[in-house]
Structures are given as structure tokens and as C-alpha cells.
């Protein structure tokens, strides 16, 4: 068992990620939340639309751990089901945005000239409009629903992928191994895919991990503004909105989903930072405090004693 385990932690990427306890803790939280939402049917005490008109707008009670909403539905269960919307939107959006963004970035980087100018100016134009407003606009066109929301948010994330890929392509376009690729007979597109694309991946992966958190935030904003999924499917943003109308009577109903969003996005950001540090060559070490100094000194003494003993034989 030890031998196999050793191979996993050999790769520097995994070692850096597992180095920090906070990152491990966040990873656990994310995985647990993800599993809960996937197996929501088994985990959630009630269905997300089980209406019980006898217990409307009740605070936390033994029957309903986090209280009930205006139709007597259990908030905890809706919170668990809400995870499905947020995670799926987060994942779908980021995948869509990265594919389009990287493709555009590659074309803009390799093609150069007018094509690149047109692409880059359109990208500037789209990114000139702040994300919330652009997703408002696109949702107005496409209407509500998970897929439309994903498209709306993806459009706002495409510029960042495109710009990163393009700058990466420009910097490595005339690197020797790329030129060698063309000399070896690949036509331009094949060469781009074989040589240039792999090198832009690492930066894009960092961007992806950073963007999932942002995508979930954007989704909850749209749901809060009422542009998200259709009821009765719950999403954290729409639950905050329901809670907002009854803020005076039951503040809990608005606060709890917000805390949930914050924890999930916080975990995604912390894991994203760890991924960035893992992929970023110049890792910044951390300083030793007194306790580690004592520990190191003892280790050094032991090692020198062993060395001295070794030298005697």
C-alpha cells in the first residue's frame, strides 16, 4: 500500500495542494457538498417541493432544522437541492467559456492581422460591459432556465480565457519547438493544436479553477434578480430573494443560503489559489516559526550524530 501511495504524492502538483491543511479542509467541504447535492434525494429530509400548509414561515424546529418558507417547504432540503443548480451551472459555464475562449484565443494568436484585430476588438467590446449587466442582457434575450443562464454567464467569462490564451500563444509562437513543428510538415492548424495548445493549458486550468467560484456567484446573482431557474426548482440565489421579502419576519431564511454560497465559493477560491501555486513554478515558501526551528534543530542534531557515527565505521 505504501508503494502505491508514494506514487500519488510524487507528482509535485498533488504534493503542493496537500501541503496546506486549509486547502485539504476546503477540498473535503467541496466534495461533501457536491456529494450531498448529487444524492439529494436520499440525503434531504423532504422533497424540494413538499408543501405543508400547516407550518408556514416557521423558524428552526426539530421537524425543520432550518425552518420553512412561505409554502411550508423545508429550507434545508431546498438548500441541498439548490446545490445541483449551482454546481451544474458552475461547471457547465466554465467548460463552455474555456472552450470558446481558448479557441478564439488560439485563432487570434496564430492568425494575427485583421482577424486577430477583429476578434480582440469584439472581446474588448464584450468585456467593456460589466459581467452582471451583460448576463442580464443575454438572459433577457434567451429567457430563463439553466442552459440559458450558463450561456449568459459563459459569454461574460470568454474574454478572460481568450486574452490569456492569445498572450500565451504570442509569447511561444516563434519558440524553437513550434517552428520545428512547422518544419516537420504539420500544416498551421495541426501545428497549433499539437504544439501551441498544450502549453496554454496550464494557465487556463488556473483560470478555470478561479472562475468556478465566480460563475456560481454570477448564477446566484441572476437567480436573486429572478432570472434564474423556474420554480419550484430551488437555487441559492432565488432562496435569498424569497428570504428578502420576509426579511422582517424571518431573517434566517435570507441569511442561510447566503452563508452556503459564501462557503462554497470561498472553498473554490482557496483550492483555486492552491492550484495556481502548484502550477506556478516560483512557489513562495513559508517562514518557520519558533516551534519549527526547534524541530529542525533537533532533526539536524540527530542527522549529524548519525553522520558522525557513520564516519566512524
Amino acid at each position, binding site marked *: 500500500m505504501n508503494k502505491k501511495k508514494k506514487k500519488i504524492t510524487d507528482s509535485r502538483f498533488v504534493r503542493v495542494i496537500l501541503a496546506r491543511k486549509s486547502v485539504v479542509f476546503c477540498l473535503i467541504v467541496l466534495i461533501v457538498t457536491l456529494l450531498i447535492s448529487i444524492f439529494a434525494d436520499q440525503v434531504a429530509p423532504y422533497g424540494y417541493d413538499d408543501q405543508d400548509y400547516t407550518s408556514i414561515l416557521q423558524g428552526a424546529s426539530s421537524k425543520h432544522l432550518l425552518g420553512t418558507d412561505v409554502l411550508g417547504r423545508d429550507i434545508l432540503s431546498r438548500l441541498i437541492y439548490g446545490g445541483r443548480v449551482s454546481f451544474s451551472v458552475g461547471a457547465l459555464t466554465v467548460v463552455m467559456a474555456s472552450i470558446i475562449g481558448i479557441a478564439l484565443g488560439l485563432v487570434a494568436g496564430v492568425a494575427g492581422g485583421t482577424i486577430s484585430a477583429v476578434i480582440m476588438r469584439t472581446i474588448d467590446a464584450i468585456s467593456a460591459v460589466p459581467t452582471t449587466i451583460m448576463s442580464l442582457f443575454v438572459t433577457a434575450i434567451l429567457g430563463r432556465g439553466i442552459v440559458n443562464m450558463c450561456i449568459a454567464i459563459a459569454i461574460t467569462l470568454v474574454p478572460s480565457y481568450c486574452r490569456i490564451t492569445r498572450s500565451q500563444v504570442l509569447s511561444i509562437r516563434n519558440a524553437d519547438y513550434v517552428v520545428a513543428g512547422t518544419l516537420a510538415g504539420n500544416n498551421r492548424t495541426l501545428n497549433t493544436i499539437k504544439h501551441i495548445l498544450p502549453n496554454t493549458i496550464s494557465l487556463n486550468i488556473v483560470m478555470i479553477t478561479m472562475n468556478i467560484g465566480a460563475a456560481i456567484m454570477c448564477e446566484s446573482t441572476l437567480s436573486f434578480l429572478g432570472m434564474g431557474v423556474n420554480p419550484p426548482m430551488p437555487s441559492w440565489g432565488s432562496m435569498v430573494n424569497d428570504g428578502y421579502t420576509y426579511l422582517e419576519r424571518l431573517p434566517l431564511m435570507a441569511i442561510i443560503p447566503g452563508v452556503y454560497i459564501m462557503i462554497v465559493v470561498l472553498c473554490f477560491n482557496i483550492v483555486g489559489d492552491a492550484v495556481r501555486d502548484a502550477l506556478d513554478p516560483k512557489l513562495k*515558501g513559508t517562514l*518557520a516559526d519558533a516551534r519549527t526551528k526547534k524541530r*529542525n534543530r533537533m532533526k539536524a542534531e540527530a542527522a*549529524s550524530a548519525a553522520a*558522525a557515527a557513520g564516519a566512524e565505521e
Partner: protein
Amino acid sequence: MSEKVLEIKNLSVEYNTEIATIFAVNGLDMDLDAGETLGLVGETGAGKTTTAKAIMRILPEKVGEITSGNIVVDGKDVYAISEAEMCNIRGKVVSMVFQDPMSALNPIMTVGDQIKEVIRIHEKKLTKEQIDKKVDEMMELVGIPANRKVEYPHEFSGGMKQRIVIAIALACEPKLILADEPTTALDVTIQAQMLALIKDLQRRLGTAMLLITHDFGVVAQICEKVAVMYAGEIIEYGPVEKIFDHENLHPYTIGLFRSIPNLKVKTARLNAIDGMMPDPSVKLHGCHFAPRCKYASERCKADQKMIETEPGHFIRCCRFDKEQGGSANE
């Protein structure tokens, strides 16, 4: 006037990081007279740069710390005075030239301003015009046209940048200059100019210099005395002519000289000292070179002390200990 510019007694420096504690310098003794040039030679990782940084008291905060010994610069104990007093010394009494000129200058400040900054700190009584004149003077001194002082570091080549770093170091005519491998990053032709420039300025301003290098050619060309450093301590110290006549030297110094490739003789393989540098995170006792030394014997286990084999030439190796009948050069 042989009063000492620099005296270092039994200096030990440690670096504490997350992974381990590094024992960079283990009991170093050294002193330097005014106007004298001492070459500090040794493999990378021997603790040369750490010594220089320790002298300037710019070891990284909370990481590097002096665990024993003291450093006296121009009569003041560097680790006893306050930070404010230390700032007055840095740049005025002792200044430093770094190894990599490419990143030694602040990219968003003009070259002239970076020279002006050190003058304005130490020469409070000078007026603005006098300072500008001094900056032009220093630029001309190091061979750069004064009108280029408004340009930025990225507009200069490596060699030119190193000249500016030197100009900064010598602007306030310090008593001691610590040169940490000033020419390593430069190509050979520029290297010769740089050394000639430093030697000339040293003679003109009477500055003492501690030249840190791993290149024996530079030492021969420019230094009066040589100190060979290995694993954090000086194992041989003496005048250049004594060390360079290749007899009765410390085994490690012999190994160093032998590893310089001889152009006249056809050799299939370069000979290097076998074995590896000791692990710096392990506290060493006795002769640090013992594990790699051909003549290692039982007596090498004890801490070695510097033995004066001939006037001014010290070697830290028990084999040269006359009283105990050690015999050199079997």
C-alpha cells in the same frame, strides 16, 4: 595605517526555513586592513554571500540569524548598534555590489535618481546642484555619459548596469566595498574592464575590498590576500603569491587548483574533487573536509584550528601541526 576596517570573530549564521535549518557559516574569523583587497574563494554554497550579507546586516528578516560571533566594521560592532545607525553605515562606510546586474536596479526609477538617492542620504549638507554634479562625476568615473542619467535601467546592457551599481556603491567613498561575484554575470571582455575599473577606483579612493568569487583568475589579477572557504568556514588564508605557488596547501585548495583545466596538456577527463559538498542542514564537527580528504585520519575528527605554516599563511588542517609531528605532502 594598518588599523582594521573589518574584523569578524567566530561568526556563525543559520537560515531557518519551513523545511530545515541551514548552517551557512560555522565559526568564521576574518579581518581586513584599510585599502587591502581580500579574495574570498569557494564553491557555491560555501557561505560566501551569506558572510557578505551578514556584514551588511541585510540577512532576510526572521529567516537568517547570527547564532555566534560578532562583526566589527570600522570600529563599530554591527550587531550592537541600532537600525538607524546601521543605515548611516550602509552605503557610507561599507557598500555592496551584487552579482546579477540585470535585476539589481529598480526598474521604474531613472539611473540618475538611484545614484542620487544614496548621496542624498549620506551627504546631507550638499545642495541640489552639488548632488547633481556628484552624480555626473560618478557616471563619468564609471565610464557612462552623464546625459544618460535620465534613462531607465532597461535601456542599458548588463555591463553598463554593473557600472551603475558600482557607481552607486562608490558614490559616498566608502571605506569597505563588498563585491559579490561582480563579474560572473558578464562576458569575459566586459569582465576585464570591470576589474580594471574597480582596481583603479580602489586605488584612487583608498577603499578596502572583499571580493567574493569562485574564479581563481580574478583573484590572481586583483587581490593581495586570499581566503579559501569550505562548508561555512575558512580553511586556508594567506597572501596571493604564497597560495598560488602550489605547495604545502590545504588538500581542498590543492583539489581546487587541480580542477582548473590545463590548456597545454591533452586530458580525457577533467579531474574534480570526489565526494559531495556536505549537507548544510547537518551540524558539522571536526574537519568539514575530512569525508572527502585523501589524508583523512583519526585526528581529523577533532575541531581543527588555524595553524600558521609560514608568516601570514594559515591552514586549518592538523597535518600541518608541527608540534604533533604532522608531515605535509606524503
